[in-house]
């Protein structure tokens, strides 16, 4: 049963039609999202137009956290079930997570200058995001430095250790006194952000999520073709 599901999922993941559909959806969501974020959405009464940086900073941070959590979850599966497909999926997710983490750090720094008067502060939220960036870096580096079997183990352990940092990032604004503002969007309680800003934020989040899916699909194909190339040598 599991093998049938895996085969069907694999078929979707390597389908060029599915990849093209994701690309088209990404372009649509990005175009509408950019128009909403840069033109239609209002200024903030305190931060004025600098609040627009939120539309690239927040989705990037969310997605980088989500991807790292997924990698850690799959890595646990790799260690317990020795599932090779989990290895390919987690390895293919890492590049986009890394780039989204970088975008979150840099755009946060750009936002920090007009808001706090500094490009960088060793604040709990910012520092814990930097730690996540280092874990992403170590994860990707392990694939470059070690041979395959060793890299599978080392990268899995890096992600599992690194995921401890995810709740620290999430709750850093509640646990410590920090420059960073607390969460404006809450799943369990009412959000403190107006709908005129929520719409572009969700459109940009959807666009960024679609982009990460697109990169994942392309990278998954790269990794799978590498495996198949080795397989052709053995026939």
């Amino acid at each position: 049963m599991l093998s049938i599901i895996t085969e069907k999922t694999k078929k979707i993941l390597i389908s060029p039609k599915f990849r093209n559909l994701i690309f088209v959806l990404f372009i649509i969501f990005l175009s509408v999202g950019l128009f909403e974020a840069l033109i239609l959405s209002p200024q903030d009464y305190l931060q004025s137009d600098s609040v627009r940086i939120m539309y690239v900073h927040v989705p990037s941070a969310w997605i980088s956290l989500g991807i790292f959590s997924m990698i850690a979850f799959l890595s646990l599966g790799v260690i317990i079930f020795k599932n090779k497909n989990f290895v390919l999926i987690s390895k293919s997710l890492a590049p986009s997570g890394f780039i989204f983490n970088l975008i979150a750090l840099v755009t946060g720094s750009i936002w920090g200058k007009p808001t706090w008067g500094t490009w960088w502060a060793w604040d709990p939220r910012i520092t814990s995001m930097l730690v996540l960036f280092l874990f992403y870096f170590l994860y990707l580096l392990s694939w470059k430095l070690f041979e395959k079997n060793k890299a599978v183990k080392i990268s899995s352990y890096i992600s599992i250790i690194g995921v401890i940092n995810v709740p620290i990032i999430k709750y850093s604004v509640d646990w410590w006194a920090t420059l960073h503002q607390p969460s404006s969007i809450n799943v369990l309680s009412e959000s403190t952000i107006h709908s005129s800003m929520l719409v572009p934020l969700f459109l940009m989040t959807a666009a960024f999520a679609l982009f990460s899916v697109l990169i994942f699909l392309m990278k998954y194909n790269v990794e799978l073709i590498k495996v198949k190339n080795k397989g052709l040598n053995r026939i």
Partner: protein
Amino acid sequence: MNLDLFIMNGYGLYVWSAFAFTLFNFLVLYKVTSRQLVKEKAKFARKYESLNSDKVILAYKQSTNRTFVRTVADKI
């Protein structure tokens, strides 16, 4: 021309540089991954082409190989 969109009450440089940095990274990541995919597909096509007919039948039995053969058909 409405310059307000670019100036953004004095925050234009910060806002536009944040958006430009994001889109630049998207473009670079897309290009790099796309180039890797083209390279691996070409390698697959070369290897598949070099197989003898018996081995081609054997390789074609795998559904993943069939999908990749279809996507690189123009190169074989």
